[in-house]
């Protein structure tokens, strides 16, 4: 049976899905978590550190939602505060210094929404990440493993390769929020989810991501092994790329009206011309 967009939203939010830390444990060895933004505090919603990918040292950054109720509260349900984004940025700059590739795992309903978060510059923290990541001179790969909620997700996804798990979602606004604005009725979230084109298949169609990662054997060692091999292969390609930064800029530069996939589709174009004649 085909899953609807909203089914996928529910799967992506599911409690039993592997979280950021599971991916780190499954794919990397010798992970050492590094804490703190060196400005104010340490945000538990973002877990970051150094590790080996096979024999290759890498910097790993993951948004972690937590498992138990207690842990989820501690990690503010995977909604990072500005301190989390600043920690991520600090470690990304460190990665650039030591020429380590950066791997990000994104799973958030959005950046944390609170009085403190606003007072500490949530918008500024995200903006600085977007700007700096665009010119970090090391390969960056981001994988959306669950929810990809708006700017809070994008702040770790300005990358050379972006992948999504089969049932992950990536959206500018939550379907509930969208339904609330459009129809003043959050219960129409399922309809909104379909309109927002937030599934991995949609993202691939619009060229937002490079590939969809299959969820066969999700959470098992073969699953992580598959992702590991994919990462190693892509890092090999990216490490050889002399125009890494130009290509990263172009990757995002193309998202506009020029690449409207409807215009590119030759079959559709023919029918339009046909109807004019």
């Amino acid at each position: 049976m085909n899953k609807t967009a909203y089914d996928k939203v529910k799967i992506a939010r599911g409690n039993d899905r592997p979280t950021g830390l599971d991916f780190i444990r499954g794919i990397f060895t010798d992970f050492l978590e590094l804490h703190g933004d060196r400005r104010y505090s340490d945000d538990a919603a973002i877990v970051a550190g150094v590790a080996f990918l096979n024999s290759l040292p890498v910097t790993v950054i993951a948004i972690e939602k937590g498992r138990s109720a207690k842990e989820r509260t501690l990690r503010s349900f995977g909604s990072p505060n500005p301190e989390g984004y600043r920690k991520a940025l600090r470690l990304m700059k460190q990665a650039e210094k030591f020429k380590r590739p950066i791997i990000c795992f994104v799973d958030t309903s959005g950046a944390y929404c609170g009085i403190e978060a606003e007072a500490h510059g949530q918008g500024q923290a995200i903006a600085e990440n977007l700007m700096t990541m665009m010119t970090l001179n090391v390969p960056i790969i981001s994988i959306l493993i669950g929810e990809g909620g708006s700017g809070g997700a994008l702040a770790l996804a300005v990358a050379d390769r972006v992948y999504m798990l089969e049932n992950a979602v990536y959206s500018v606004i939550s379907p509930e929020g969208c339904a609330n604005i459009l129809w003043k009725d959050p219960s129409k979230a399922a309809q909104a989810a379909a309109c927002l084109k937030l599934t991995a298949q949609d993202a691939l169609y619009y060229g937002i991501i490079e590939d969809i990662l299959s969820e066969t054997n999700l959470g098992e060692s073969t699953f992580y092994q598959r992702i590991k091999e994919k990462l190693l292969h892509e890092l090999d390609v990216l490490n050889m790329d002399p125009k890494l930064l130009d290509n990263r800029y172009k990757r995002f530069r193309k998202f506009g009206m020029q690449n409207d996939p409807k215009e590119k589709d030759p079959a559709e174009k023919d029918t339009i011309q046909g109807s004019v004649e």
Partner: protein
Amino acid sequence: MPLLSFTHRPQNELEKEGRMAAPIQEDAGEPEKTCPNCRKPIPLSRLWANHNTCPCGYHFRMTARQRIHFITDKDSFFELFCGIKAADPLNFPGYTQKMETVCAASGEVEAVVCGIAAIGGYDCCIFVMESYFMMGSMGTAVGEKITSLFEFAQQNRLPVIGYTVSGGARMQEGILSLMQMAKTSGAVKRHSDAGLLYIPVLTDPTTGGVTASFAMEGDIILAEPRATIGFAGARIVEQTTRKPLPRGFQTAEFLLEHGFVDAIVPRHTQKSVLTKLLKMHHPMRGTA
């Protein structure tokens, strides 16, 4: 702090109403607007002569063209990228119809106006977002225009002045709107790395995806008095945290206090402040 003294304090008995540029003849039947701050009616011609500000210091919203008119030198503005307008990439229900209504009502084709102009005799690129066009929301066209402007400015080694007004990313263009945050940030970064000046002026309201991208990426960030500036909407923050919001939450003054804007500049001094800043960063500036 001279920049903050925006209230038009009367200097003597003859100036009870505050200092005005010139006395204005008022018709008895002229339409008026009531100031939401001091609750006094103010005739439209007088409001206009005072840059859409009330003598009490309240800043009314302005259209993008009004702003361009008051901030740039006479006849110096030349519009760029005016042919770029949004498609409906997601086939979002009701979007095309909504765009048609909004275009007709606002007289604009998109939520930002870009161009080159002179301010106080100094050439610059300028973009002004339009609050009367879907609350300045950023879709692919807005992102494309702003990105193109920064690229143009970089090629021509010009500074960029940008007035931001936005409700955030445009929901109707979904994930493609979100990508505009990365796209514009990339263009700002390249412009910045080329050693060029970018001054955003944050006006009421600047929120969401625009705050989390090019609004906060300036070398010098200015804001209008009392402008609402934030990432999440105040109502959402209140609902989520279930705590009363502090007084003045997400105002320009709140951001100044927390260190996120460089200065609050009232509208009637904006042109002179921008002129000074452009002069200080001009490549032909004086030597010691």
